């Protein structure tokens, strides 16, 4: 065993931060959903059996009164800024790992406040105060940031505020944790998956492997995970403090005080920093975002990422930070617009490049796509650029929704964009093939029988007469050569306000054009066309 030990670190972890960030009623059941999966749930929702990873609908089944909130990383980060700034009195070295989790080295503050225990309790008390005392805050101290994070999570399970792992005992503390807990710190799901299948269940099993063998078989990601499992820092040796001239600065004239302009500046500056580092073969793992306002105030916050920050991830963090400052509460909010923005790479590592997955499946998002997306977001607004995601539903328009590109990670695998991700049956679903034209707003049409009288559908789903002609708005009626239906759709019968009762038809006119029609309360609508 080497004499190397991880840097003694304190981690503050707010469980289910995305729920807190959405500012719910303290006792209300709330879930935060991303790509149709629960990413965080409030205590009340968990008490009703909701778990992270559940589908939205399954969560609603377990807890019908649950409030569903869409995930918004920007909101999470904005809400976290007051928490991070509440600790500025304790240490200047607060690093935000991600919204809801922050870390700092305890060496100085611990001596000042009389030991790790009293420091941890003091920090828990201060953060809890910043959150209004309504939410649990967990603090862990251990050798290495990963150990400290697991200690904070252990505190949560034990229902206490703080857990302090004594110096030198990090490896023993980590040992019994499952291998999957490595995913909290490093994004190596493939390596973890293989280890689990090889029978390595706990971090102790992993730590017992010879490092050379892990390196030979699993490469850089495997070594990183192995180091964490052994209670060491990810890379105390490789990280170095770069020359100050790598920092990028931009003077903003006029000063930025609006969030949308801040986003644009963040993107360009992050790209600039990333390009400058890349030219030197470096990647950034910790960045200092510094803003100066017209009145001379200087705001600064560090962001850390366990992997190397890509240009997109860097831009996200800068944007979140500016959002946090510009929309903050009175105490932290600057008194004037930001007129200078500086990004300082605090810690850099050699860029190892992003390897295509050894096990396949990963696709590299071209830099060009990032640039085009960022440019169009700046030009047309962030909501104008969307990506499709598949949802459960009956009508063709309900089954694919458009999600703002800002809320998804294009570099990650997105199973929610594949129709195969919906496995539950939907009774009453319009069968394949799907129409290639789906009207955003159904348009009113007239369907008549052979004698020119409007066709009606009774409450018992009986058609008054076979449909014979169809008149689209502003067109002459055309003869129908085939029709099928009615297929009743009785949706949300439990909710009087959103209850809809419709019957769908497929019709083919004499020119071969096929339409999907719906009749509701006696009126006919064209929903889609099979063109």
């Amino acid at each position, binding site marked *: 065993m080497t004499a190397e030990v991880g840097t003694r670190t304190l981690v503050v972890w707010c469980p289910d931060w995305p729920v807190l960030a959405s500012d719910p009623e303290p006792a209300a059941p709330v879930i935060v959903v991303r790509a149709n999966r629960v990413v965080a749930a409030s205590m009340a929702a968990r008490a009703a059996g909701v778990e992270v990873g559940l589908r939205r609908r399954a969560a609603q089944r377990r807890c019908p009164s649950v409030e569903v909130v869409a995930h918004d990383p920007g909101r999470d980060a904005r809400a976290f800024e007051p928490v991070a700034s509440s600790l500025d009195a304790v240490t200047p070295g607060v690093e935000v790992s991600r919204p809801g989790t922050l870390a700092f080295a305890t060496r100085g503050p611990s001596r000042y406040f009389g030991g790790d225990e009293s420091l941890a309790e003091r920090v828990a008390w201060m953060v809890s105060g910043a959150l209004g005392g309504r939410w649990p805050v967990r603090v862990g101290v251990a050798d290495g940031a990963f150990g400290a994070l697991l200690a904070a999570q252990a505190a949560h399970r034990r229902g206490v505020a703080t857990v302090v792992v004594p110096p030198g005992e990090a490896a023993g503390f980590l040992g019994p944790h499952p291998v999957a807990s490595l995913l909290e710190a490093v994004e190596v799901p493939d390596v973890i998956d293989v280890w689990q299948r090889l029978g390595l269940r706990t971090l102790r099993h992993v730590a017992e492997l010879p490092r050379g063998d892990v390196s030979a078989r699993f490469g850089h990601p495997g070594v990183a995970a192995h180091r964490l499992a052994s209670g060491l820092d990810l890379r105390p040796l490789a990280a170095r403090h770069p020359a100050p001239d790598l920092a990028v600065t931009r003077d903003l004239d006029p000063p930025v005080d609006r969030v949308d302009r801040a986003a644009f500046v963040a993107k360009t500056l992050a790209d600039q920093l990333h390009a400058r580092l890349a030219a030197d073969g470096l990647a950034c793992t910790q960045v200092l975002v510094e803003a100066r306002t017209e009145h001379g105030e200087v705001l600064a916050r560090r962001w850390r990422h366990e992997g190397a920050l890509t240009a997109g991830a860097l831009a996200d963090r800068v944007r979140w930070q500016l959002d946090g400052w510009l929309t903050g509460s009175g105490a932290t909010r600057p008194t004037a617009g930001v007129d200078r923005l500086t990004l300082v790479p605090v810690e850099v590592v050699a860029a190892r490049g992003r390897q295509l997955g050894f096990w396949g499946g990963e696709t590299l998002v071209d830099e060009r796509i990032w640039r085009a997306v960022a440019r169009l977001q700046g030009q047309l607004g962030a909501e104008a650029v969307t990506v499709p995601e598949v949802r459960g539903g009956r009508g*063709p328009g309900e089954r694919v929704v458009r999600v703002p590109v800002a809320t998804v990670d294009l570099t990650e695998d997105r199973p929610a964009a594949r129709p195969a991700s919906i496995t539950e049956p939907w009774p009453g679903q319009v069968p394949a093939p799907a129409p290639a034209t*789906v009207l955003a707003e159904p348009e009113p049409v007239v369907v008549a029988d052979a004698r020119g009288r409007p066709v009606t559908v009774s409450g018992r789903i009986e058609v008054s007469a076979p449909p014979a002609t169809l008149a689209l708005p502003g067109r002459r009626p055309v003869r129908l050569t085939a029709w099928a239906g009615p297929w009743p759709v009785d949706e949300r019968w439990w909710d009087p306000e959103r209850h809809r009762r419709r019957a769908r038809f497929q019709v083919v006119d004499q020119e071969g054009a096929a339409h999907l029609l719906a009749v509701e309360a006696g009126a006919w609508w064209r929903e889609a066309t099979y063109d």
Partner: protein
Amino acid sequence: MAVPAPDLVALRELGDRVRPLSAAAERVLPVPAAFADLIPQGGLVRGSTVITGGSAASSLALALAGPVTAAGQWCAVVGVAHLGLLAAAELGVALERTLLIADPGPQEWAGTVAALLDAVEVVVVQPTAPITPTTQRRLIARARDRGSVLLQAGGRSDAWAAQPDLTVDSGPSRWEGVGIGHGRLRARRVRVQVSGRRGAVRPREAELWLPGPEGQIAVAAPTRTAGSVGSVGSVDDRRSRGPATADAPAWRDAG
């Protein structure tokens, strides 16, 4: 031994410089097998403009864009808010590599399309206003430079100042599986005619399943050159509407 860090800027420039020398197959984007015989080059030529029309205009555009996204490239849709995305997935478009841009309006339209031609392989559009010759030249130059394809999914065929390189038109659809008050739409047979300015002087046409009973895109009746003495009995009645020409397909639906 210390290895100097690569000069990425220089490498990228070098990559750009050697691009035109890449293999011929790379200058063509893949299309479904059923279209391979219809299109003279066997695929969508990078840097070209394509327009689809007729009773299956949207489906044709989606089917043509599908294999490109399946091969790991990206596709973007500008405007065309009514495009059926579920149908896109069924016709082979990988939705995880599709960007959707809300209608940018006439002022920003050209700039948006140009930015996307830079970034993705296929840009699906449906211009609502006529496109000036200058704008069209600029977009085509951008597409040629980047090797992307501008694909118009139905809509007005006269929006472009100069005719697109490839016109993929469709005759009336024949739906199967639906009767008078029973069944449901299951499969469609449609005559597809491909004509163009370059390399496809004589329009080629074939009857395709779009989609077939199993959701596949397949040839229902073989390819032949329009105007030749065909012997495909079931479709001869349609040809009586007159020979099609390269510039103006004789049968064109309003849709």
